[in-house]
């Protein structure tokens, strides 16, 4: 660790603070919902379950500038994982003094480039430069405004109340490319939007039916004609954006659409669905304009192969609660996150729990995934993951649709804003032009 780290009240920040923070995160009494982000630490799950004492967690500080993390099994993505707030330190000296009130404005202490100046829920979070940070930021004061929706943020950007807007309504993209071209920033987001089949429910236990539904979907139309938001078509379940990973595309991806439709009709006929006895499907999706348009387009594509799809929308909590309970036939789902393939491929492991919404199971796949998870070398791990994906791609448990894009408005007065796959933009690297 750097030797010159300090909290914003001047107290030195040492490796002990990290030991305290990681133990606190995994302490069952803290009830941290993201505690599992550090389950790769030795004994972490047991500590979090309360079956082992906190001191047995695989973290120690032999001296104030050295932090040692002991892992339960190889985890080559550790450094990236530590970038999440679950890897940040919390001020032991403040928490011990103030208890739960350590997050209150008067007690707030930070170890970042900024520290809290004011915080009114829903109104604003104001920050000023932390005098004890080792590198003073160029912008001394920052105000975050939590807006209730994209339209509101877009309005406030246009009336010059905001220098950066985290998003805007997707329908405005044409206006913005014309009137605010110098402010528009779009970038890919590491994510996967996909359809999942409930393989427990007939007829979706039949791979021919799943394949037919997959064949009929034209991902390019979804991104280029329907969304037009900068989203990119996806043909593999692990996003193509992942570095150092060979993703496995759907086998039919290079076939012309006519041929795909003919094959789909054939497969459906083999499974017993013809124009006299058409397949009826309920497609569940999240409420919201964008999801609605995508899913309407999909039901239109299915119509071409003789499938009658009915749409069923619900709010986020209801939608994913139903998915976890397996209460669906085919459903739209999304996964956003880290830059490693197992983050996505793990969703198809049979022992992963109810986030494998379709209850898909392939023992060969499971075995390969287990093998990958115990591999320390990044290259070997990725190549095993890739061969696992190659196995599962013929089972059609999911239909990859697209990877999302993020759209921001950044005032041309600001410099230092760089697009990146994780969409992280730290204010301390920004400056006024």
């Amino acid at each position, binding site marked *: 660790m750097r030797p010159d780290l300090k909290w914003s009240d001047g107290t030195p920040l040492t490796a002990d603070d990290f030991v305290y923070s990681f133990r606190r995160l995994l302490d069952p009494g803290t009830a941290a919902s993201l505690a599992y982000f550090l389950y790769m630490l030795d004994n972490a799950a047991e500590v*979090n379950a309360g079956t082992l004492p906190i001191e047995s967690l695989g973290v120690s500080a032999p001296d104030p500038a050295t932090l040692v993390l002991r892992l339960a099994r190889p985890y080559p993505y550790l450094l990236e994982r530590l970038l999440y707030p679950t890897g940040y330190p919390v001020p032991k000296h403040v928490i011990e003094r103030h208890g739960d009130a350590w997050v209150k404005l008067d007690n707030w202490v930070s170890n970042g480039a900024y520290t809290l100046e004011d915080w009114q829920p829903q109104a604003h979070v104001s920050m000023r430069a932390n005098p004890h940070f080792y590198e003073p930021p160029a912008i001394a004061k920052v105000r975050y405004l939590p807006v209730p929706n994209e339209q509101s943020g877009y309005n406030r950007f246009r009336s010059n109340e905001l220098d950066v807007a985290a998003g805007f309504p997707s329908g405005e993209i044409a206006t913005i490319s014309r009137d605010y071209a110098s402010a528009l920033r779009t970038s890919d987001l590491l994510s996967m939007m996909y359809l999942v089949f409930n393989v427990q429910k007939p007829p979706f236990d039949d791979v021919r039916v799943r394949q037919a539904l997959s064949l009929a979907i034209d991902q390019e139309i979804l991104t280029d004609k329907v969304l037009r938001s900068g989203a990119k078509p996806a043909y593999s379940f692990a996003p193509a954006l992942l570095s150092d990973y060979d993703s496995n595309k759907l086998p039919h991806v290079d076939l012309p659409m006519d041929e795909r439709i003919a094959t789909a009709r054939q497969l459906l006929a083999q499974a017993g669905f013809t124009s006299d006895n058409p397949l009826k499907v309920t497609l569940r999706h999240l409420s919201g304009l964008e999801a609605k348009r995508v899913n309407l387009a999909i039901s239109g594509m299915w119509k071409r192969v003789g499938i009658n799809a009915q749409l069923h929308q619900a709010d986020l909590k209801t939608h*994913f609660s139903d998915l976890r309970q397996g209460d669906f036939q085919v459903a739209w789902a*999304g996964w956003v996150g880290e830059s490693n393939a197992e983050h996505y491929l793990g969703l198809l492991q049979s022992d992963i729990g109810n986030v494998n919404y379709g209850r898909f199971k392939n023992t060969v796949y499971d075995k390969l995934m287990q093998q990958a998870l115990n591999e320390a070398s990044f290259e070997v791990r990725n190549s095993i993951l890739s061969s696992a994906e190659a196995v599962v791609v013929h089972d059609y448990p999911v239909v990859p649709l697209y990877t999302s894009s993020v759209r921001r408005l950044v005032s041309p007065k600001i410099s230092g804003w760089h697009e990146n796959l994780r969409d992280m933009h730290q204010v301390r690297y920004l400056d006024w032009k």
Partner: protein
Amino acid sequence: MRKYIAKRLGYAALTFFCVVTVVFFMVRLAPGGPFDSMRRLPPEVEANLQAAYGLDKPLIVQYATYLSNLAHGDLGPSFKQKDFTVGELVSRGLPISVALGAMALALALAIGLAVGLAAGLTPGSLLDAVLMGLSNLNIAIPAIVVAPIMVLVFAVFLSWFPAGGADSAWHFVLPTIALALPYSAAIARLTRSSVAESRFEPHMATAVSKGLPRRRIVVRHLMPIAIIPVLSYLGPAVAGLLTGSVVVEQVFDLPGIGRYFVQGAMNRDYTLVMGVVIVYSGAILIFNLLVDLAYAAIDPRIRFD
């Protein structure tokens, strides 16, 4: 009178209790829970969260705990905004919602009474037709349509007002107007018909024959009677202003409690939804009582015995 108030307070308390009970169980019936998301929570984490928020106990025990805390003025922790309690969130948002509601009510009354009086004194005239036409338009177009148009025109294009926030009095101008408009129209219509009818009451003829000045007749003899229907409308109007503020606060980005209502419900933030419901229903019950008491104060024909 005192007996009447005591009886009404008793009913109000009973209604309040029923609302709290129904909402407590209803929010918990909605699918999904406060800690669900797309991500998977390991069972250990789930268990820790359930224990920390008392969700592992039987529902009836949770209910009893909630009521007992409520009796002590404790609205509990927010399930989603972990750095604030529901009490803190409500107490910071409430002044903004109250200011917005009070200003909108005042504006609605000022416009509505003036327009209604002007139209009601000359029923059938051109002035009456124009004013009532505008009022009908105002009632027909809800705030969810008017408010975004106001933001676009007056904030984004003309830059006369800010597009959102509550940093100054200036920020309240557009939301107050947007919220007040439909209510001013309803009040105008009520006042108009009531004024038009009351003109022929016997005591009005007496006042005219006594040779009182027109201004005095209108203010002292006509208005107290004509205002009664408006007064009874104030109860539902306040309820409407509260729910209307849910929309207006969203559009104008005001940090009031209206936004918590929607957010809390979407997030299954049980305690936050309860907190807002308690404030809303309390406000509505108290206001209805005040309105009833005001009848007696204004109309000498009404007595509560």
